[in-house]
């Protein structure tokens, strides 16, 4: 299986995000800024978002890595690495 492209990952992340926060408009989202600084995103939302990513990609993100998932860019970076690591293993 080939690893999903950064573009595909980005779309998956946005899908998981809008499932939790339907009020978010992806077209005005700043990819570099933390979600928390841009819209309502509490710890329950974050947990549900991580569960959404897990369902879509099969990646189980340890709690200690949560800070790396704070922004859209951060998510894509983290997930690219995580999926590459699983592919090698």
């Amino acid at each position, binding site marked *: 299986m080939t690893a999903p492209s950064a573009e595909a990952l980005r779309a998956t992340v946005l899908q998981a995000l809008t499932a939790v*926060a339907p009020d978010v408009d992806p077209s005005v989202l700043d990819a570099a800024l933390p979600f928390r600084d841009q819209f309502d995103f509490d710890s329950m939302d974050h*947990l549900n978002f991580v569960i959404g990513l897990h369902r879509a990609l099969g990646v189980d993100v340890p709690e200690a890595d949560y800070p790396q998932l704070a922004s859209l860019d951060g998510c894509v970076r983290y997930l690219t690495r995580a999926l590459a690591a699983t592919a090698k293993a």
Partner: protein
Amino acid sequence: MADFVMPSLGADMESATLTTWLVKPGDSVKRGDVVATVETTKGIIDIEIFDAGVIDTLVATPGAEVPVGGLLATYRRSGTAAVSPGAAPTAVPTPLRPGAPPTAPAAPAAAPPTTTPTAERRLASPAARKRAAELGVDLDALRPSAGGAITLQDVERAAAANAPRPASAAPTDMRRQIAQSMSRAKREIPHYYLGTTVDLTNAMRWLETANASRPVTERLLYGVLLLKAVARALERFPELNGFWRNDAFEPANAINVGTAIRLRQGGLVAPALPATNQQALPVLMRSFQDLVLRARTAKLRATELASATITVTSLGEGSVETVYPIIYAPQVAIVGFGAVVVRPWCVAGAIVAAPVIHATLAADHRVTDGTRGSAFLMAVADLLQRPEEL
């Protein structure tokens, strides 16, 4: 024949608009089945029946505003004859309701058009209406694609295109409802306030270890520890768990902690977690997660909105350290938690950096005094020191 009436979804509710029937005459129902959805200022709410039987007549029609206690439907209790001798079925439409409160009009089914939110109601198929209720689509904002009635496809298309939320969820309605209940609480309840800082070192460490070995779908949030600690402490302080009614305190017979949930469109609701003190943490966490999700998609059940015996409000990460909450009448206490912050803390004569949280209690002075309130908050703090026992 038994009556199925509009339940009260909180002391501040006078009536609600029937949106959908999920049953039809002849359907068998059992205790706890969701039989209809109603629209209130808290959104679309599922209402359950608390009896087993067979639905006989749907008296209220979707779109009708029905007062609390007003007749919605009649049903035959399980075990009773289908047609009782001497009672012709044709006599059913205007049954006598000796137990109905005086506020209920004689025939809620014939709700005058003035009480219906929109004078011109859309024609919609039952399936479309049901789906619209599920998806939070406002039928009045839709145009039928084929000229006639709104179909299931129309509803799903509208939902996909981010159709407007139902009017009930509009911030203005929510604000009005909050204004009413909070003004009443401030006017009628002599609040007293207490607060204390609680060391969460043990709790956070325990949580980190517990979560490290759990898949993401089974992880716990610290909020669930707070809810459980409050519920367990209440076992020893029944005078904080109940209602002030008719100038007297009525202790509740269960501990159902209401949890304040912020809604995305503004405002908040505080549905209950049933028997909070008896739920194992993972179970409580799943119920809590489910409750937040359904509160935010306007799919709460009536009992959840009406059964809280005390409320907890937790501000969460990135918030201030202290909240001074207002009691939800007729409850007699509310517990508040600020954000978890790292602060200098004295342990065995040395100063360490520790995660702490500020816990507050607002309680009704007609029922308790500060001494009891203080003992209760200290009991909560104490339970949080031993998270493995929660």
